[in-house]
């Protein structure tokens, strides 16, 4: 006897769809192909990828929250300027906060924190979602996209760090005879890897140009 179907399957609720879109079907990196600069630049170590993912997710959530709150006040002609000001304000706050209270973490992140301002995923989500939707769904969407971005970054970093340095999170995993691939530590190696990832993930997600 078939199980009684619950009235609304969790898969079909709006909040689940909003959250999961960023993680899988509308993943910012392999579907939207946004935020590629940072994905190429900082995925050579897993620790860097984790820090960048956390920073971007944080700024994404708060920028989306504020843009969504202000969405009825923002004059359409200056909306891009508004995003930039809000995003920059948050990123500088994060940077200052880390410098004052967590100096070791701030040092490890170095110039990456400032570079979050230029991450186009944040601006993209503000323009495509937060400015038209309610606060709750905007934050969910930001969370989904931030996590989706972080996940792809971490997967790239695991491959790159193990091939380029023979380690993961500074922990040696490769056997002694392993010759480090310097190519994977620099951006060109990341291009090849990102290409392969796009190919695999897009095939799995059945995302092809119509």
């Amino acid at each position: 006897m078939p199980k009684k179907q619950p009235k609304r399957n969790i898969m079909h609720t709006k909040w689940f769809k909003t959250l999961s879109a960023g993680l899988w079907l509308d993943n910012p990196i392999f579907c939207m192909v946004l935020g590629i600069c940072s994905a190429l630049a900082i995925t050579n170590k897993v620790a860097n990828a984790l820090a960048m993912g956390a920073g971007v997710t944080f700024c994404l959530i708060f920028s989306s929250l504020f843009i969504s709150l202000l969405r009825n006040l923002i004059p359409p002609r200056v909306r891009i300027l508004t995003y930039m000001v809000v995003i920059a304000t948050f990123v500088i706050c994060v940077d200052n906060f880390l410098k004052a209270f967590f100096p070791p973490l701030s040092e490890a992140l170095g110039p990456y924190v400032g570079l979050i301002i230029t991450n186009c995923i944040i601006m993209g989500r503000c323009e495509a979602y937060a400015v038209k939707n309610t606060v709750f769904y905007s934050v969910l969407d930001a969370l989904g996209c931030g996590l989706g971005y972080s996940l792809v970054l971490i997967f790239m970093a695991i491959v790159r760090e193990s091939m380029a340095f023979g380690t993961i999170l500074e922990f040696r995993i490769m056997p002694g005879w392993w010759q480090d691939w310097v190519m994977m530590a620099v951006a060109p190696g990341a291009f090849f890897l990102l290409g392969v990832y796009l190919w695999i993930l897009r095939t799995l997600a059945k995302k092809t140009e119509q």
Partner: protein
Amino acid sequence: MKKALKIIIFVICLGASSSGLLVALNNYTSPLIAKNEELKLKSSVLEALNIEYESVKVEQVFDNNVKVVSKDGLIFYRYQDKAIAFQFSGAGLWGPIKGIVSIDSSLNKISNIKILKQEETPGLGGRITEESFLNQFKGKSFRPSLIFVKGPAAKDNEIDSITGATGTSKALEDLLNKTISEYVAVLER
């Protein structure tokens, strides 16, 4: 006209509120940041001079052991008669490199090097902060000058540079040689 005015007012309000927030935050955090930087400098000087310390007692240990000497406008950190440390700073490949170098009292050999700040390529030039790279400076002679070489360092004044970070290595080599010769010249007078 009314629309344009509304936009101008909105932008001014937005700019004023965000700059107000940032000014307030900056006022609140800048003494903390300055304090952190001072602690970082002091602990690096202690490390460069091979003085052991606990992270909570940096200032106390620093005041007890290190004598800050100013000569010809240059600042030296002296640890009894054992070693002398001073700061070096200059352009790296992408951004400034700042650090502390200590030399032995016979003014011939490097005893230790610490990097305080750098913005080099992560994973390549950024590896100048790694212990394995910095440790090889210990006991190296800076006369006539330090030379960064590719492949294993053979001579007394050679350093094995980082593969894939030629720009950073060159910048650090020039920076160290210039700073050390300048400071040692003052010390010798």
